[in-house]
């Protein structure tokens, strides 16, 4: 395994950006700490170093989901989304606010797919569900977004 510091050097900014998008600026720092502490805990036992970015983003989204659960599923207003590697063609103004208002699983699925560009299998790993269920969450999320934004 490479020195853990290289994971921070390479991915800390992106993880922070994703977390700000998922839980808001105020709570992103706490989720960031939880994400990297969890990663440090698991790191020596990690078998495969080929996709450390996906692994970290997966943990980050789990922490974001935990955070929302702990807050009783209340939707947090997301003022702005920065530094997110957006692959969504034209994320119009405020789209992430609408994403932020989705139920946790749908929100995470959408953020992982279009914010972090993860494939379905990794989204499934992040959410702790089957790829089929991940696909369904994503589908439901997109459907709801279309309705909200229509």
């Amino acid at each position, binding site marked *: 395994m*490479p020195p*853990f*510091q290289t994971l921070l050097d390479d991915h800390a900014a992106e993880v922070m950006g994703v977390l700000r998008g998922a839980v808001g600026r105020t709570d992103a720092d706490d989720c960031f*700490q939880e994400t990297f*502490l969890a990663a*440090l805990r698991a*790191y*020596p036992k990690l078998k495969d170093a080929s996709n450390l970015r996906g692994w970290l983003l997966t943990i980050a989204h789990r922490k974001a989901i935990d955070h929302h659960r702990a807050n009783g599923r209340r939707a947090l207003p997301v003022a702005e989304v920065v530094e997110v590697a957006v692959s969504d063609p034209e994320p119009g103004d405020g789209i992430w606010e609408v994403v932020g208002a989705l139920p946790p699983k749908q929100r995470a699925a959408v953020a992982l797919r279009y914010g972090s560009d993860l494939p379905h299998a990794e989204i499934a790993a992040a959410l702790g569900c089957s790829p089929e269920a991940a696909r369904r969450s994503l589908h439901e999320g997109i459907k709801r977004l279309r309705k909200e934004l229509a």
Partner: protein
Amino acid sequence: MKATLERLADRASDEGLLDVAYAMSDSPFGPLLLAATPRGLVKLSLPGHDPEQTLEDLAARISPRLLEAPSRLDQARRELDLYFEGKLTQFDLPLDWQLSRDFRRRALRAIDRIPYGKTRSYTEIARSAGNERAVRAAGTACGANPIPIVVPCHRVLRTSGALGGYGGGLPMKEALLKLEGIR
């Protein structure tokens, strides 16, 4: 982001998740890389050695839970600064010897006992380590010293008084001896 990362290093350390902390430190000879485990200073890499390679070695040999955490190396950096200014003659740092074993570790511990401003021969070090005839191995132990300067292998010379070798290059060895008033 800097404060966030410092907080992370502190929390990792508090939770026993920081196995190796490292920091760069300036010296008159160029940047030094210092690394410590919770037990003590484990590695000092001299200028001219690739820091990234050193960090990869430490990750492989000790633990990949390795973070840049300068606050964990404040004391070592302070003592080294004073040493280079000629104001410190004995380091008072906990050391972690885990990167050396057996004869090499015994040789390095013997070297660690050479007082400031004094020298020993490779033969004397071999004898202190328990095998007077292992002069070449004593030389190898010096060359493989993971914590040079602090474990003063620059104080080991040939019996003839010739410099022998040094991981940071002979000019550095000579300069350190001069700093200590030896040559």
